């Protein structure tokens, strides 16, 4: 299961994605050599979600290819964890919180095998990790937004992946959930995992991430936060949108203070 040290964690080469002949992402080249916490930022419509969906094979590539630990994504399914946007499913579906987290173990189980006691205990441990163990038997529709988000995080944890892709896990959640997500990112990183997070709050970028991918239909810049998350690159990514740049400016000032 442990990948060879030589292959990059993620290698995106010459990726272009188009919806109905309208390009959404152009010529993306992106290589992550070592495990890292990566924030993907950019204005609305910049293709942030599309980037991770393209990596996951959920949207077709017009050109290019993606490799995870040196192999095509289709052959690395068990190494990849996914946290979709919360709104992507119907929460009135007849399932309990534990049912949903157990879905994370399905990939390892394969066809026909049912989740057993071992999977159950593991799923409960994952729920414990995001602070939802008490609600394991709840119907998922009875959860608050933040709790639903954490259920998805627990499901991703249950996948025991090496690389996680998360689509706005901190959008519209309460402070406690944001804290849970943040702590989880740190723990995953400490375990040698790689996490790519579509993120919208520029103020927290320096605090949360080691590297940034700055995106606006094309790759504007990528690299360590200290050298890449600069006023110049932000301007290139967001153009002259003042409120966003002000928020970013605040983040930059904080970053400078902490150095």
């Amino acid at each position: 299961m442990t990948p060879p040290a030589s292959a990059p964690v993620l290698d995106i080469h010459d990726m272009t994605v188009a919806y109905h002949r309208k390009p959404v992402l152009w010529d993306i080249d992106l290589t992550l050599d070592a495990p890292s916490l990566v924030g993907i930022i950019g204005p609305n419509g910049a293709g942030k979600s599309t980037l991770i969906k393209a990596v996951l094979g959920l949207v077709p590539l017009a050109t290019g290819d993606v490799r995870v630990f040196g192999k095509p994504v289709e052959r690395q399914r068990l190494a990849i964890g996914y946290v979709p946007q919360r709104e992507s499913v119907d929460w009135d579906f007849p399932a309990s919180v534990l049912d949903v987290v157990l879905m994370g173990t399905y990939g390892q189980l394969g066809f026909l095998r049912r989740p057993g006691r071992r999977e159950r205990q593991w799923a409960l441990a994952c729920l414990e990790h995001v602070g939802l163990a008490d609600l394991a038997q709840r119907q998922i529709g009875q959860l608050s937004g933040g709790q639903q988000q954490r259920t998805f995080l627990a499901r991703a944890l249950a996948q025991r992946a090496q690389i996680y892709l998360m689509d706005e896990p901190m959008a519209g959640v309460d402070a406690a959930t944001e804290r849970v997500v943040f702590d989880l990112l740190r723990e995953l990183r400490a375990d040698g995992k790689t996490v790519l997070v579509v993120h919208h709050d520029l103020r927290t970028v320096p605090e949360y991430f080691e590297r940034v991918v700055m995106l606006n239909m094309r790759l504007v810049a990528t690299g360590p936060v200290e050298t890449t998350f600069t006023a110049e690159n932000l301007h290139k990514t967001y153009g002259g949108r003042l409120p966003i740049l002000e928020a970013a400016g605040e983040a930059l000032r904080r970053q400078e203070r902490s150095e």
Partner: protein
Amino acid sequence: MNLVPSYNTLIVLAGTSLLGAGAGLAGCFAMLRRQALLGDALAHAGLPGLCLAFWLWGERSLPVLLLGALVSGIAGIMAIAAIGRFTRVKQDAAIGIVLSTFFGAGMVLSRMIQNRVSSGSRAGLDSYNLGKTAGMISTDVYLIGGIALVALIMIVALYKEFKLVSFDPAFARVQGWPATALDLLLTLLVAIMVVIGLPAVGVVLMAAMLILPAAAARFWTDRLGVMLVLSALIGAGIGGLGTLASAQFSLSPAGPVIVLVGTAAFTVSLLIAPRRGVVARVLAETAYHRRLDEQKVLAGLREAEGDEPLAVELPPWRFAATAGRGARRRRAALQRLMVQGFVRPILGGGFSLLPSGQQRADLVERGRKLWVALLLRYPELAHGYAELDAETIDDLLPAKIVAELEADMASAAPEWSP
């Protein structure tokens, strides 16, 4: 009245029950994947294929006719998918267009056939519009039973895969499941179920057989497994009951009767199911408001009495004299509290808490403080304990958290002790 069913009735009964069970199983997935209308489109789109098969094959051979219906039904679904994919027409419009076009074509075809063939088999095709259960023979029942059994085995074997792909197809694909194939398999299951139901229930009403049991079952449970079992049972029940009722009251064809029995099952579920049912919701709402009113009155009396254990006269305006709905509800609450022995009236006006009322008021007070402490310490937990009530907070919160909150309260408000 003939209470002992004949052999023929038994055959039909077995057929409609098995059909109901199979449609109930397939319908759960159709409904959860928001494809309920697709079943309707399928049934209508099956008619031209059925007619063509009748024309080409000549005489009535059920498997061939059904195969024809299946092929044109699937062609209809593919037409809907194609319209959605290559044009800007939305799915509901596409379903409407395809459904009526195919049905119209089927009607024209059936007229053309009936004008050509001898009058003896004229009724053959018309019966597919509303179904003709009475014509069912034992081989039909074997066919229906066989397909229902295959559906059951498939759902048992692929339960986890079907559940995943119905809930979150993108996640299924990320895990490497052949989500598209699983999706097609489920759609095919629905298509086959709809098609074998055509002779019995008919093109027009088959969608109801698919949707009603699943929609009724959803009211009773929050678990997919339970929902599937219930839906199959409800489907079998309405198929059987509808057939019996139609035989008993000489209402033929049985299809519409079966659908009406299904509607009754759905309506009953909608009304009386615990928690999700309308009655349960209204009752819970009313009970909740009553409790809230009682708690307010108890708290008001407790506050008026202060820490004095003795009865203190309550200014009568507090509950009695103010006008409006709120005052009426508080008066009603006060009356209930008196009947239950929590409060007694005092001579000369006013009310006083009895010892049991004092106890309950203390409980309410403590619950409220715990609630506030919970909100302060775990603001994000509040939603998860939505059904918490000041009086039941102790039972519903884990003991660990209650102890923690009590510690919080002790440090924040040293004057308060339980």
